[in-house]
C-alpha cells in the first residue's frame, strides 16, 4: 500500500519532456520487485538464447536421424528426439527465436497502427473520433483468436503473416488506451500554454501529449508481448502458424500431444518452455505496471 502511495505522488502532469526522474523511479521500484526481476532475468536469457541459437544448438533443427526416432532424453540427446529423429533440445532453442521474434515484432506493428489511430482519434475528436471508436468497438467485440485464425488461413502460414495477423487484430487495445490518455491530457493547462505559444498540431501531439501518455502505452506493450507469443503458440498448435520445418514451441506441443501416451517428452518440454516464458512476461509486466503507474492496478 505504501508503495502505491509514494507512486501516486509522482506528478505525471508536470511538464517534463524527458521525465527522467519518473523512469528512474520506475526502474528503482521495478528492481525491488523480486518476481519481476526473476521474470526479467528469464526474459533476458531467452533473448540471448534466441540471438545465439546458431551457436548454442548442438545440432541443426532439421537434422533427422532415422535410426533414433522418439528417443527419451539421453546423453546424446539431452531432451530426446522427435518423431523424425530430430534433436528436441536444438529445436527448442530455435523455437525460442520464433517466440521472441513474434513477441517483439508483432508489438512493433501493433504500436505503429494503434498509437497513431488512438492519438488522432482522441486529439481530433468529433466525427473522426466517433467513427474510429465505433470501428474499435466492432473489432473489440469479435473474438480475437477467431479473427486471427481466419486471417491466418487467408494469408497462409509463415512468420511474416503471423506478424501481420497479430498486428491487424492487436492494435485495438493500445489505440483505446492511447485515445483515453490523449483525451485526458489535452485538457491540461500546459497544453493550452503550448498552444498559446504557437505550437502547431503535430508539435503539440508529438512533443507535448504523447510523451505524457507514454507510461500506460509502455504497460500495454509489456502485456502485449506475451499475448503475441501465446497467439503464435496457439496458431502453430492447430497448424496455421509457423511453417514446418521451422520449429515453434506451440507447433511442437501440437505435434507431440498426439503421441503423449507413448512419448511424453515430445510435448512436455515445449509446454514447460511456453509456461515459463508466459509466466516470466506476466511477472515482468505486472512489475512494470506497478512500478510505472500504480493507478492502473
Amino acid at each position, binding site marked *: 500500500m505504501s508503495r502505491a502511495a509514494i507512486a501516486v505522488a509522482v506528478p505525471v502532469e508536470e511538464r517534463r519532456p524527458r521525465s527522467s526522474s519518473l523512469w528512474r523511479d520506475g526502474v528503482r521500484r521495478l528492481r525491488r520487485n523480486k518476481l519481476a526481476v526473476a521474470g526479467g532475468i528469464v526474459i533476458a536469457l531467452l533473448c540471448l538464447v534466441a540471438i545465439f541459437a546458431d551457436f548454442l544448438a548442438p545440432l541443426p533443427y532439421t537434422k533427422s536421424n532415422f535410426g533414433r526416432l522418439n528417443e527419451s532424453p539421453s546423453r546424446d540427446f539431452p531432451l530426446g528426439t522427435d518423431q523424425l529423429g530430430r534433436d528436441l533440445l536444438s529445436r527448442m532453442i530455435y523455437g525460442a527465436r520464433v517466440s521472441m521474434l513474434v513477441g517483439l515484432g508483432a508489438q512493433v506493428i501493433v504500436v505503429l497502427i494503434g498509437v497513431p489511430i488512438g492519438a488522432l482519434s482522441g486529439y481530433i475528436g468529433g466525427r473522426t473520433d466517433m467513427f474510429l471508436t465505433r470501428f474499435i468497438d466492432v473489432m473489440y467485440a*469479435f*473474438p480475437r483468436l477467431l479473427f486471427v*485464425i481466419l*486471417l491466418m*488461413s487467408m494469408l497462409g502460414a509463415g512468420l511474416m503473416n503471423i506478424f501481420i495477423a497479430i498486428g491487424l487484430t492487436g492494435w485495438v487495445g493500445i489505440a483505446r488506451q492511447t485515445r483515453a490518455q490523449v483525451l485526458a491530457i489535452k485538457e491540461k493547462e500546459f497544453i493550452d500554454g503550448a498552444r498559446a505559444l504557437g505550437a502547431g498540431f503535430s508539435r503539440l501531439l508529438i512533443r507535448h501529449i504523447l510523451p505524457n501518455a507514454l507510461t500506460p502505452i509502455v504497460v500495454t506493450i509489456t502485456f502485449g508481448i506475451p499475448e503475441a507469443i501465446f497467439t503464435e503458440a496457439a496458431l502453430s498448435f492447430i497448424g496455421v502458424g509457423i511453417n514446418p520445418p521451422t520449429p515453434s514451441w506451440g507447433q511442437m506441443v501440437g505435434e507431440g500431444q498426439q503421441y503423449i501416451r507413448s512419448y*511424453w517428452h515430445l510435448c512436455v518440454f515445449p*509446454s514447460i518452455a*511456453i509456461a515459463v516464458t508466459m509466466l516470466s512476461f506476466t511477472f515482468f509486466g505486472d512489475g512494470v505496471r506497478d512500478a510505472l503507474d500504480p493507478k492502473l492496478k
Partner: protein
Amino acid sequence: MALVTFLVMHATPGSPLDPVAEGANPLSPEAQKNLAAHYGLDRPLYEQFWIFLTKAVRGDFGNSFVYKTRTVSEIIVQTFPISLLLGSMALGLAIVGGLTLGILAAIYQNRGWDYISVSLATVGVAVPNFVLAVFLIILFSFIVPLFPTGGWESPRNWVLPTIALALAPMGIIARFTRASMLEVIRADYTLTARAKGLGELPVIFKHTLRNAFIPVVTLLGPMFAAVGTGSFFVESIFRVPGMGRFFVISMTGRDYPMIMAVVLTYGVFLAVMNLVVDLLYGVLDPRIRY
C-alpha cells in the same frame, strides 16, 4: 460478421477443389467444373453469399465439403451440445471457483489464502490452456492415474477438459473479485453493517458480495468468448467430439460451409450471451435502468 467471414474465407488462396488440398485426388478440369457447379462454387461471390444467407436463415448450411455424406447442420446439431456442455461446465467451475478464490483472497488479504489464490489466478491467466491440458494429462493420467487422457464417453472423461478450459477464466474472475471485494470491504456501508453488530458471515454475504459482483458480471461477456475459442484447443487435445475440434479440422480442409456455420453459431451464441449479461446488470444493480 457473416459477410466478413465469408469474404475472408473466399479470399483465401486454395480452394476445396484444388488438387493440393489435403486428402484430395488430382482431378481433371472437367470433373472440377462439375463439382464446382454441384457445390455452387462457380457462381459469382455475391450470388453465393445470397444463396448462403437465405438458406442459413432456415438452418440449412448445405453439405460439408470434407464429410461429404453429412450436412453441416447435422454435424453442428451433433457437436454443438457437446461443446455447450463442456463450455457451461467450464464456465460454471470458473465462476464458482473464481468467486470463492477471490473472496477468500480478499478476506485474508496478504495471508496464506491470498497468496494461494493469486498465484493460481496468475498461472491460469498466463499459461495457455493447451499447455495446461498437457500438464493436467501428465499429472492426473500418468503420474496419478485418476482420469483418462481423452474421449468423451463417461463423466470421468469430462473432468480434465473442463478443468483445462476453466482455469483461465477462473483466474480472471478471481483477480477481479479480489479487487472489487477489497474495495467494497472498505466502503462505508460495510463499516455500518459491522457497527450494527452483524457477524462476519452476514456482512460478507449480504452486504459486500452483491456489490462486489457487479464488476465481475461485466467480465462474463468476454468470458464466453474465451471459453468458446479455448475449446478449439482443449477439444483437440482431449479428443472431445465437439464443435471446436471440427472447426480446426475444417479450417485445414477449407470446408467453407462448415467454417461459416461454426463461426455463425459462435457469433449468434456470443451475441445472445452478451444480451443476457447486459440484462443481468439490471437485475443485480437496481441503479442501472434501461
